[in-house]
Structure formats: structure tokens, C-alpha cells
């Protein structure tokens, strides 16, 4: 019912939906992500008021376009309902709209995704690294980051 509602409202911008044993997932175009989230948060029949998690996946090994998926996990306290939204982001245009204006928690989540995957968030107030140090080059959870490449601040290189 929730997925139907999304499809009805956003039509072709919803690329794919699935319902695996009550585990709802919708794959959408990244352009609509802010409108979609605003709708999911404010609609009185849905009321997804908590952003549980925001992360990303690198599908380099599948060699697909778009390369990354940004994954949002939402939870509705009034309806006790969960929902997963995925939005593909390609390497060439590695930007997606920020959700800080909707959920303040997105601030740190998005900084982490920027730090680990190098995906930029348009409209983020202070997009800088959160886990690694500022001198660190590259984004360590990208699959093309060498697995044991270290960038120590002090001490030997390896």
C-alpha cells in the first residue's frame, strides 16, 4: 500500500519496488529524493518521521551504471512501519540532494558517506570528513581504494 502510494505520486521516477516478507524497498531516481522524502515525512497516511540510517553501497564489481546506491532507511513511529529507499548515484555526477533540512541526523550520516564513498550532498551546511583525518586522500570504502593503502600521520608508511 505504501509502495503503491509512492508509485502513484512519482510515476516513472520510481524505477523498481519490492516487498520481501514485509521488507519494503523502492529504487528511485536521485533527482526526486528530496521531494520524495518530504512527501514520506509529511503525508498523514505515512508519517515516516525517523531517518534510521543513511549509507551507500559501491557496485564497482558489478560494473553497473550508476555505480553507487545511496540507501535510506526510514521508520514511522505512529504507523510502526519501515521503508528502504535506494537512489543510484553515478561516479561522473557524484552528487545527491542533502536531507539535512528534513532530518538533522542526516548531517553526520551524509558526512560519513562523503568521507567513506566520496558522494557529495548538495545543500549540506558543512560537508567535511567525519571519521578520517583531513589530510587523508581518497575515500577508503570505495572498492577501487587499495585494501592496505595506509596514509599515516606519523610513523612509517607501511
Amino acid at each position, binding site marked *: 500500500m505504501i509502495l503503491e502510494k509512492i508509485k502513484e505520486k512519482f510515476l516513472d521516477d520510481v524505477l523498481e519496488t519490492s516487498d520481501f516478507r514485509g521488507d519494503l524497498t523502492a529504487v528511485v531516481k536521485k533527482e526526486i529524493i528530496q521531494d520524495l522524502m518530504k512527501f514520506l515525512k509529511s503525508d498523514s497516511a505515512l508519517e515516516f518521521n525517523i531517518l534510521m540510517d543513511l549509507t551507500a553501497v559501491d557496485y564497482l564489481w558489478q560494473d553497473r551504471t550508476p555505480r553507487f546506491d545511496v540507501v535510506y532507511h526510514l521508520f514511522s513511529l505512529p504507523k510502526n512501519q519501515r521503508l528502504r529507499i535506494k537512489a543510484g548515484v553515478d561516479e561522473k555526477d557524484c552528487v545527491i540532494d542533502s536531507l539535512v533540512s528534513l532530518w538533522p541526523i542526516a548531517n553526520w550520516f551524509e558526512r560519513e558517506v562523503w568521507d567513506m564513498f566520496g558522494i557529495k550532498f548538495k545543500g549540506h551546511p558543512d560537508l567535511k570528513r567525519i571519521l578520517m583525518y583531513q589530510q587523508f586522500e581518497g575515500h*577508503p570504502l570505495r572498492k577501487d*581504494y587499495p585494501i*592496505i593503502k595506509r596514509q*599515516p600521520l*606519523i*610513523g*612509517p608508511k607501511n
Partner: protein
Amino acid sequence: MNIQAQDRQESFVTSQLNDLIGWARKFSIFQYPFVTACCGMEYMATACSHYDIDRFGAGLPRFSPRQSDVLMVVGTISHKLAPVLKQIYDQMCDPKWVVAFGVCTCTGGFYDNYATVMGIDTIIPVDVYIPGCPPRPENVLDGLMKLQEKIQGQKQMV
């Protein structure tokens, strides 16, 4: 050490200054617990009454490096934290010793990646290594006794 009570009434001992200072120092270990990870639980178990680290004269952890003489590095050290550890070590007054507590501090443990220092001996000199993930309290006490032997046996700075 060569202590001889010549006579109960007169009761004096003969020793060498080096041995006497070593004996005093090994039973008055003031440790700085640099606790960063899960090994800290085992450190606490060792320090509490069940295993009672105070039997070895190491019962008073100081939370200022300037008041302590044994730096206990307990838990994984990341590259981001490495300069902090070095600074803490530099702040300690001589004589000072370092104990690498747990396999992460000894060698990096199973973390062979971008984030972890491959053994703290790449940054600061280490006197005693206590391997284990985490080491059992008996293992820690064994390491502590090894450190005491080392303190007793070395040439004392006066």
C-alpha cells in the same frame, strides 16, 4: 637483591643503590591506561578485586601522563589517534615504560587496512607485549611481572 638482617636488634640491610631503586620502582607502578577499545574490559577485570592488580603495586592508575610511569596502551590504535599517543608518551617523565596490551597494539591484529596502526612499536618504544584478543587477566599479570623483572634488572636512572 641481597638483603640480610644481620641482627634483629640492630636490623639493617645491605644492598646496592641500583637494586634498591629497582625494587622500589617495580612495586610502585603508576600506570596511565590509554584505553581505546574492547581490551579495556579485560584491563578493568584485571584491575578489580577479583584479580587485584594492586598485589603487584600497580593499583593506582593516574589519568595524567605527567604523574605516571607506565603507559598501558589498551586497544586498537588508529592512524588518526597515533599523534595523540605519541604526545602522551612525550609528556611522561623519565623513567617510563610502555606496555602493549592486546594483539592490536602489538601488531595491528586482524586489522590489516587503511585505518589501523600496525603495532604501536612503529611509533613509540615498547617494553612488554601482552598478546591476546583480548588477553586474559592471568596473561596481563604475567606481563606485569615481566615488566617488574625488567625494571628490577635494568640500570636505574637516578
